[in-house]
């Protein structure tokens, strides 16, 4: 929200301070969101796939779908892909690249790279623990 309250005076200073604190908290939450893809809710799964794909370079929607299908074996439906893309863009994790093509490419931002790194690290820990426990208790054929 743009600050258009030109008539703002000291009368509401306490409230102003409270709101500033709230805004700062919201900013922190958004920064946290950048470090935790889980906060994207139902889009967190597709989001990690999209960010992983974009880590290899900018891609448009269809190229993303094909790339994700090739490395993850999952084909994201168009609606799901764009729902996640719009959320990632709104959180500043990806950005659209100027293009003369109607197929607009997207690229990873520094925020997105940090979020993906944090997410993949946590997933790696889970995978390592799971695999080591399986190796100790179960004989995998």
């Amino acid at each position, binding site marked *: *929200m*743009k*600050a*258009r*309250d*030109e*008539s*703002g005076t000291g009368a*509401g200073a306490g*409230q102003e301070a409270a*709101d500033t604190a*709230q*805004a*700062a*908290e*919201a*900013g922190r939450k*958004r920064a946290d969101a950048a470090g935790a893809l889980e906060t994207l809710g139902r889009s967190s799964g597709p989001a990690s796939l999209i960010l992983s794909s974009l880590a290899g370079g900018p891609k*448009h*929607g*269809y190229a993303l*779908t094909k790339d994700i299908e090739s490395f993850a074996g999952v084909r994201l*439906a*168009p*609606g*799901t*892909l*764009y*729902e996640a*893309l*719009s*959320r990632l*863009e*709104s*959180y*500043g994790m990806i950005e659209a690249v*100027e*293009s*003369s093509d*109607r*197929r*607009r490419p997207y690229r990873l931002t520094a925020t997105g790279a940090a979020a993906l790194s944090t997410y993949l690290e946590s997933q790696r820990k889970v995978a390592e623990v799971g695999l080591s426990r399986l190796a100790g208790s179960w004989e995998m054929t």
Partner: protein
Amino acid sequence: MTEGQHPPQDGFGSEPAGGPEAARIRFLLLWYPRSWRVRYGEEFAELLTAELAELGPSRRRTANVAMTGLRARLAGAGLTSHPLDPEAAAGASLAAVATCGVAAVLAGGAMWAQLAVGLQWSVPHTRGIGQSMALMSGALLLLAVLTILAAVPVAWTAVAAAMRGRGRAFIAPALLIGAGLTVLVIGGHHFENGWPGTGGHLLAPQGGVPGGVAAFGWAATMWISSYWAHPAALGAFPAIQIAWMVLCPIAIGCMLAGSVQLLLRVRLSPRAFRYEMRLISLAWAGLAAFLSGALCWLLSADAAGSGTLFQVGAIDRASFAVLSIAVLGCAAAATQVRAAAILARSGGPIRSTDSEARAR
């Protein structure tokens, strides 16, 4: 899209449509709100074209697009979170609060008006009915006061914009609100003369409601009636009354449409927004009190087998269901107003091209 180019306003893409595939894609895009189509429509259409060429039509894909499109519409209506444009999302959530509030007051007002009529003619057998009337009347009074208080900064912002020569966007909403209000007030006053409460027993309790207010409430909610399901009985009504039952919801619809347009177009200052958020919290308490009063009536009337004047009919149960859903919708939208306002203050993520298009 290259710099200097602007997305088409309908978001369907810039090339002329042709063939069944293009028609299919245009149909699929319709699931999404206009603001989403303006931002993503063109590239999304390209993706759908490629998908159709590779895999052909698919019901699963259609269902996916429909579901995500509806979610985007809910977000656009301010009922779920979507930080595409916090400023626009805040306005949409405010409009959703207003819409749900009006739906709640209409549904609840019809129940309240029926009780008001009953109390003109009869003393209820149970205390619950009197208590529910008091609760509903108090809540309605609170909501009326809050509506007036909430309208002041919105109207002032619009007037101030008009004085700076930027009032064109507010002409249509103002006309809609003015026309709807005029029809409602004139028609309501005309038809309140035929109020069943008129001529009621002088000593009858009136539930603490002035007769004129109760009569106007009755006239304004006359169209919320089970008579629509009984055309033969409805046909016995005077033609002018049936015309009013058709015209009244149109007038209320005009007022609501104008108010929603106004809320979507006006850009409130942060201070005004905080003020509105406080009023919304109070309004939610008022709606909850109203809901409790309505529930009290439903339970008391059913339990005590009250007289015909206080009997609960199918239309009252339906009204109660609408009232409950509207109160829940109001709560969801109020949460989003707060979230969007805070997110916007923290330096919203991006501004949609729709906002920019509107600004132009």
